[in-house]
């Protein structure tokens, strides 16, 4: 398992220091689209920072967030063993300064110093067919987590009913409320349905999708496109200083719900959308 531990340390290093190419390209396109020189400059600072972080192997953002691991494993592999390997890798990556120590005891306020604690890091398991382990890692900053929001439809204040248009209104409200706290231009993952916890989990999982993928559901696919265009007409702009680019992407997933419940959850991710994937099979490691 030593080999796997090293692979996880490398997964964490790359997630923290090497922004995904699709996100970087979207930021470049945003810089081209913006007209105000001051706003263009904000995006230039962001892009220069992305370059420097990759070159020096230092964190893109000092808030290396909560680590969210999504692990898919064959039935023969023990979750307890993988958890132990991940914990060792997280502590090692913290010691190497790829991560800021972010695990704080909720009551005493004591920082554990190594990003290990109750519920920290967050690890989600799924069983898969076939050999080998796959793991996605999402580093989600506290600022972006603070502005994530959940709606219960119908919502009278928004005039949002239990339909696609109601979802649209809730998401636009969430994006507007995130200004000044989440670092725009961000990405929103939306979970529709489920119970409260399941709805948020589904929303967060959408953030693993590449920016240029298509939603297999036609109705949700066109809603994603419409929401992206409408969010970008809000005028919030990069860092909330005004401008044309408020979001880089909208990704929506749905699951079954109780007849009485209709939750729409919005998981906001800042522009520093740090996600990476590890594939580990037959002692071969691929990270990208």
């Amino acid at each position, binding site marked *: 398992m030593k080999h796997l531990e090293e692979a996880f340390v490398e997964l964490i290093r790359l997630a923290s220091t090497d922004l995904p190419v699709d996100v970087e390209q979207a930021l470049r396109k945003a810089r081209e689209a913006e007209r105000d020189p001051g706003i263009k400059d904000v995006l230039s600072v962001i892009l220069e920072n992305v370059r420097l972080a990759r070159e*020096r192997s230092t*964190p893109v953002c*000092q808030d290396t967030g909560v680590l969210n691991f999504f692990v898919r494993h064959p039935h023969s592999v023990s979750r307890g063993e993988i958890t132990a390997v991940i914990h060792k890798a997280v502590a090692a990556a913290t010691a190497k300064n790829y*991560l800021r*120590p972010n695990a704080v005891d909720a009551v005493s*306020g004591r920082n554990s110093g190594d990003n290990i604690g109750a519920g920290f890091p967050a690890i989600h398991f799924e069983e898969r067919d076939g050999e080998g382990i796959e793991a996605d890692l999402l580093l989600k900053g506290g600022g972006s987590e603070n502005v994530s929001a959940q709606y219960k439809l119908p919502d009278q204040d928004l005039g949002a009913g239990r339909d696609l248009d109601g979802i649209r209104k809730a998401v636009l409200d969430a994006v507007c409320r995130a200004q*000044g706290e989440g670092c725009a231009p961000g990405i929103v993952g939306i979970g529709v349905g489920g119970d409260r916890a399941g709805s948020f989990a589904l929303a967060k999982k959408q953030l693993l999708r590449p920016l240029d993928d298509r939603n297999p559901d036609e109705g949700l696919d066109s809603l994603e496109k419409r929401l992206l265009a409408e969010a970008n007409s809000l005028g919030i702009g990069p860092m*909330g200083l005004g401008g044309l680019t408020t979001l880089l992407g909208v990704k929506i997933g749905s699951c079954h719900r109780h007849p009485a419940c209709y939750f729409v959850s919005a998981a906001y991710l800042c522009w520093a959308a740090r996600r990476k994937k590890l594939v580990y099979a037959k002692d071969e490691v691929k990270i990208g």
Partner: protein
Amino acid sequence: MADLNIPLSEEQVSRLGLLDVVRLNGVIVTARDAAHKFLVDSFIDSKPKAPELALYDKLKGLLRDGAVYHCGPVVAREDGRYRFLAAGPTTSTREEPYEHKIISHFGVRAVIGKGGMGRKTMDALKKHKAVYLHAVGGAATLIADSVVEVLDVLKQDLGAPEAMWVIRVKDFPAVVTMDSHGRSVHEKVLADSSGNLNRLIGRAGSL
């Protein structure tokens, strides 16, 4: 682009207007959630007590005409010396309950963070002639480059992100988004975007 050298004078700060691009030089102090609560609880809302008098005096010297930076950095320790690796701003609104007291008590001239702050802070900036400087959120490695020296670390028991790091910066990049005359970029963007939201969802807005 204006060079701002700490200590800052009232006159210098008064001249700054919205969206002025600045480069900050000199000694600044990081402080975020736990540090703000500590400063207000220990020194402002109650009388400073004996074991912390030296710390209080030190902070008074550092903050008078100085700057508070909302930041919890990633710091490396190499050969007994600290070096900033990543040091972008954190969200400032969480310090809204405290900042006005800190500005008035310590005579702070610049608050650096991201996202802007509320009415209480804005009133304090105007009354005491100070500004809010917006740094680019997430630009952590780039901003760490402007930290040329780590001079001290205070309240390290709060944990690395929450400790108060005393740092010397050179050409720290920022833009004025709340000035000392009661104006705010954030208020305008909020008003505009709220109006746009109401239009998009067909809600009669109050704007």
